[in-house]
């Protein structure tokens, strides 16, 4: 359970998150909102990449705000980035190994964990391929697989669907849908692809100007007039 209370983040004069209070209990939760609403800022605040001005955030009862980013990760908070982060000269399996290194995972179980995550993400065949030689979709999946090793408790995904074609999107959907049953982690998913959100998230939160403007079961939220006006526009309606 992710519990955010009165969270405020400022960048100079910009208030990116404004006294945000949000309790996330479902297994797969969507986070949407107009550009600049503060979605990335919220994931950054949870994972420790921005300085929080005030408020608190806890996951499964553990107060996160005072922990260093790497400690949060070791505890089990995994995340992906809006802009894919793949190291050119590390192989796919090395990417996963770093996570296990940091968690001090048992050596004998390491290979098994890596194979399991790669197999699940469907990229086992490229396990020894270096970062440079991966195509964009494989990079995406590597990043997701990286979130899956080492027994994650919470996974934050920031626009994993950005730039993917529709067929790839289908595959990604399957991958995300299976994460909770397979790995048991809670997922917070940020994306602008409303179809993806609709298909995988049981509930969805909507941010605008750093404030929560709607939160509830996904279907209801996507019908909300305020959300339609601020975020979905005609297109969201047309897709109904």
């Amino acid at each position, binding site marked *: 359970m992710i519990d955010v209370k009165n969270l405020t983040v400022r960048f100079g004069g910009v208030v990116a998150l404004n006294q945000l209070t949000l309790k996330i209990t479902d297994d797969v939760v969507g986070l949407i909102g107009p550009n600049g609403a503060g979605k990335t800022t919220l994931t950054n605040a949870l*994972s420790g*990449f921005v300085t929080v001005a005030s408020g608190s955030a806890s996951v499964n009862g553990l107060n996160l705000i005072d922990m260093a980013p*790497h400690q949060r990760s070791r505890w089990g908070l995994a995340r992906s980035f809006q802009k894919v982060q793949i190291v050119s000269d*590390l192989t796919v399996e*090395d990417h996963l190994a770093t996570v296990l290194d940091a968690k001090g995972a048992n050596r004998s179980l390491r290979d098994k964990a890596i194979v399991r995550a790669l197999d699940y993400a469907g990229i086992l065949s490229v396990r020894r391929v270096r970062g440079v030689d991966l195509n964009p979709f494989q990079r995406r999946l590597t990043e997701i697989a990286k979130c899956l090793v080492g027994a994650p408790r919470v996974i934050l995904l920031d626009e994993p669907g950005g730039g993917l074609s529709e067929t790839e999107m289908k595959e990604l959907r399957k991958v995300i849908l299976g994460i909770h049953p397979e790995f048991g982690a809670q997922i917070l998913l940020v994306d602008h692809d409303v179809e993806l959100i609709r298909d995988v998230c049981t509930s969805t939160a909507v941010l605008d100007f750093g404030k929560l403007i709607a939160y509830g079961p996904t279907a209801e939220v996507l019908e909300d007039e305020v959300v339609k006006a601020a975020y979905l526009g005609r297109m969201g309606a047309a897709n109904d």
Partner: protein
Amino acid sequence: MIQTLSRNNLIILVVIVAAIWLLPLVLNSLWIKVVTSAVIFGLAAAGISVLFAQLGLINLSQIALVGIGGWVLLRLNYATGLPFTISLVAGGIITAIISSILALPALRMRGLYLALVTLMTAGAFQIIFNAFQFPNGGEGFWGVAQQSAGAFRRPLIAQSDVSYLRYVLTVAALCIAVAGVHRLTTPGRAWAMIRQSEANAMAAGIDVTFFKMWAFALSGFMAGIAGGLLAGALQQLDARTFVASDSILLFALAIVGGVYHWLGALIAGLLFKLLPALFNDFGVSADLTLVIFGAALLHAIMTAPRGIAGQILSGFAGLVKHRETSHD
């Protein structure tokens, strides 16, 4: 691919071991001294490579760290009766600690800024060395007296220049091997991740501060050992050996040699010390050496990012492959 590479490594290792025994036999006194220096600075260059190749960090203060290692060794030599090798390791460790402390302000920095911080460090140490000089057996903390240097102890097994060269080759090979092991294990992976993006590394649970300091410590350790070895080779040190511009030069040569393989560091050391000595011996002006270094650096940066070592190794790999296919 991996097999050819490791086979190359093996072949080169054999060459090096042979060098340890053969070189001192074929060189005359001058070249023994020169090669000793070259290997020592090659070791220092290997420290630069660790930071640059693994973390993408530019260290323009390596020569200053070499000076610190040398200072500690001289100080211990005059103040205690410790055997050379123990003083040497102590110098390495103290330099490693100082290096990682110096890294502290640099931890939130990368790229150009870090390069500049280290350049400022080099500038500051140049002045400190000049103001306080190197210990020569005097009293007090700085251990400097207006007198000729006191008695210096080399390792018992390496009293002569010839056996000292063997000692240096062995120590350098050991240190470089330690760095090589780092590259292939946990720290190597962590460094690669940090190099790409610190945020990403933290998100993977990597303690960025710790691993950066570790890299600085390792690089500093190699510099410190190099400094101790240099003190042992010359039996005294002079502030003019540790000027900031030489730190810049050594960095440049490390790039020219190639930072992705230890062979590159060795080449850097040879370029730094052997080439000028050769030119000096042929009566070529030292100024032209600089021109050649500069042109080599530009050439390496523009066309051979893996340096001379990279070119040699790929040529070598090509050769091995060629032979394999023609034998089949």
